[in-house]
């Protein structure tokens, strides 16, 4: 599903060039659950952003479902992202001004799905994430665990084939963290491909395999 070869990402400021990723090569099959680990600043999030088409690599190739996407224009990346990729962030990234229902509905709105259909999908996913009773609440009225469940609901509501999670448990206590990990596992068992960046060995163990990055390079691939 994902085939990345010799991927390099360089950040340039006026006088410094930083290699966030250096000749990274990774393959991820459909239905896999892969975790990416490594110390802070090793390029995990950069890799995830590139996989998620939020950012373009400097060099290298990236095939998503056999389609070269490494150098898509912003407009096309947006189009490609829509409905194909769901995001879960460490800091949840819910919109404060929107309630739970509206937050979850967001990707469907941008997919221009009809209102009645949207309603059904949002309600389904809220039920599945056990947050149906919170539909009218605003993010700041929810606990961290609940917020992350809303974020996951938003990530999966459009039924994307790939879910990218950037330290999804980083801001949660262990009880809520495990709940979130269980949810992701369930989604994976239901067929979703998941790539998760994490600092936690325990979380990484939920995945089928782990890729370790150090200084922008893959240093270890391990099957759990």
């Amino acid at each position, binding site marked *: 599903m994902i085939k990345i070869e010799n991927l390099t990402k360089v950040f340039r400021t006026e006088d410094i060039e930083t290699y966030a990723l250096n000749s990274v090569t990774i393959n991820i099959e459909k239905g896999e659950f892969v975790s990416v680990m490594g110390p802070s600043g090793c390029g995990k999030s950069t890799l995830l*952003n590139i996989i*998620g088409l*939020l*950012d373009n690599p400097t060099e290298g190739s990236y095939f998503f479902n056999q389609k070269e996407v490494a150098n898509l224009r*912003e*407009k096309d990346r*947006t*189009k490609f*992202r*829509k*409905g194909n990729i769901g*995001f879960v*962030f460490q800091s949840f*990234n*819910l*919109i*404060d*001004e929107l309630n739970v229902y509206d937050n979850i509905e*967001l*990707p469907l709105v*941008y*997919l221009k799905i009809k209102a009645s259909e949207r309603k059904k999908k949002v309600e389904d996913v809220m039920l599945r994430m056990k947050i149906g009773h919170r539909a009218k609440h605003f993010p700041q009225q929810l606990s961290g665990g609940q917020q992350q469940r809303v974020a996951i609901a*938003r990530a999966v509501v*459009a039924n994307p084939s790939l879910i990218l999670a950037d330290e999804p448990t980083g801001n949660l206590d262990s009880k809520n963290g495990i709940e979130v990990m269980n949810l992701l596992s369930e989604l994976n068992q239901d067929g979703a491909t998941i790539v998760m960046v994490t600092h936690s060995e325990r979380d990484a163990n939920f995945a089928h395999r782990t890729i370790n990055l150090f200084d922008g390079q893959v240093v270890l691939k391990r099957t759990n």
Partner: protein
Amino acid sequence: MKIYRSIIKYPVSTALNILSLAIAFTGIITIVQYVSYEKSFDKHNINYSTVYQLQIDGKESTVPAVYSPVLRKNVADIVDITPLWFAGGYISIQKQDEKPKSYYISNVYANDDIFNIFTCNFIYGSDKDALKKANSIVLTERVSKKLFGNINPVGKTIKFRNQEYTCTGLIEDLPETSSFKTESFTSFETLLEKENSFAKLWSEWSFRIFLRISSPERYNEVLKSINSIDEINKVLHKSLDRESDGDRHFTLQPMSNLHFLEGGMYQTVNPVVLDVLILLAIILAIMGIVNFINLLTSQAVQRSKSFAIKRILGASRYRLFFQIIIEAIIISLVALGIALLLHGYFYPTIETKLDIKGLSFEGRQQWYIYFTLFTIVYAIVASIYPAKYITSVDVAQTVKGTYRFSGAGKKIRNILLTMQFVFTIVLLIGSIAIEKQIAFWHNYNTGIEKENIVYFTISSEIGKHKEAFNKELSKLKNVVDYTYSWFIPGGVGMGWGRVINGQQITLYTWPVDERFLDFFNIQIVEGRKFSSNQKADLNSFIVNEKAVEEFNWNKPLEIKMIGFDFEGPIIGVCKDFNYSSLKEKIVPMQFWLTDTRLNTLMLKISEGNMTSALSSITSLWQKFEPKQTIDIHFLDESLNDQYGKEEKIANFIEAITLWTILLTLTGLMGLAIFVTQQRTKEIGIRRANGASVGEIIMMLNYSFVKWILFAFIIGSPIAYIAVDKWLENFAYKTHISWWIFAFAGILTLVLSILAVSIQTFRVARKNPVESLRYE
């Protein structure tokens, strides 16, 4: 240094802030300079507070000159009093071996009291007796220089209005800020000396009377005494007035009003224009403050963190509060500097474009200090709220990054923004409506031809050789037709009050020659035209339909009109046409066929031959009148000049509208920066969830557009009422069409969307990763 750093740390909002303030200040400076200049008029007169012009019912200022001695005799509190007769003319001196050169100058006949009424600085001669004797003339420096160069003119003989005068005094030119303008004074005695002088007639309402009373407190007593003089009242009550016969009163117009009254012989300004300008200056000031508040509070999110850290390190809230205020003062002073530069650079252009004076700082340097003080106070007032807002953060929460600014600030900003748009939309609708009305006047078919017609006043020399002149005139190739009259269309000013068969009537009288009606193709509906033999129909009249209608004349052709020393028949009735300004309704008017007073010559030029026609007319003039230059006017231009006052208002309002639009847009851009900053992360989230750049821009624009629409809903009825009220002043007016509102609304919307999009496009296009990282 620290302050300097924090100012430049926010380059975009600081730059916008300075720009917006500079725009507001330039407008305010220009308006304040102009209004204070107009308000300074006549104050150079020492007796400013005790001088009055005699009026009737607060509007008519022309009275018989004979009132003057009667008032002086009967009212003890009148210290000085003089009748005035404004009569300019050609002035010349005989020089040896040289052809005399003559100049047209403005002049007033008056007695010596005039110098206690209008302060004049004598260089030679005395203000006590300069105008005592008949045929005395007091010259201003300007005229004296032309005639005599730098020598003392007193005692010299001068030819003026075809009479000999002796120069009895030299005065400095009247200051620019004098409403009363003249280039010379001649003694009123000159007029009285002649037997049967019109200046002695109780029926000659051609004079103005100025008087000075002993103290302003005596005003009421003076007024009472003036109104109780039988000798005058008897005559006054017999004189005619359309609305209030028999109930007319003298009033006194203070000198402080002289500059603000319409028309007349003085240099005046419409006080409504000044009031509107003051209001607009206040609006500009408010809009500047609004922008200032918006732009400064827009830094709140960014500044709060450094502020919180400083608090933790021991800075007091007040210290930071004052830092923000000091910053505001510095920014405002920089803006003032820019505004003064802009003003200095542009004011001559503005003066020419708007046809005004008084924008310069010359001789008024104290205003620099006033504006600086104003700016400091302004900055303090404008920055108190933002300073409070920024320093109100919860330190602990801010450091943790969890502090959220209250929604109250947002609400206020939205209200302020809406208010600005209300101003903009009202002004925009107003300026379009005024332009529409002016275009309506210009294009209105008044029923008489006005294209390709030129006119000029003939000199007395040409008057003497009229027949020969006319003969030559009819030979000119490009002159199709000509006619003599006293007035040109649009300026019919001779009002006659008469008692005809026991009926009191008032109507305008237009002295014309026998060619006039054909020249303008004026239709006769009853009776006949003037005969081409002028002598045969001399002193006969043709009235307009309105006169017949208003005076209920069944048989107008049987009526004998009373002239000055004759009676003349009404021989025809002409179709109504708009002979006067379109601001007024058509009122009763008559043409008087006469051979007197016909000093305006109008010429019809064949189309496309204006230039050659003008040069042949000029050479003809020079043949008959080598001493004077011809002053040719175009009739259509003169007719359009009638609406000059409205055009001036339109120019003012348009300039201010442009200014408010600029201000509103800079404010809007500031707000857009603020809002997009606040929503950067949200934008990232939405982008990650599939929103396109276009969708983000739409979303951000919508948050402003709804307030503009709201402002449109509030502003439109306000503008409608204002425009409707203004149009009520005119007899002939345009409609307030729907498209004016649509146009103003759409223009505001388009400009706003552009201003907002510049900012939102940048943020929306940003890589979502960057937006998501934004805290």
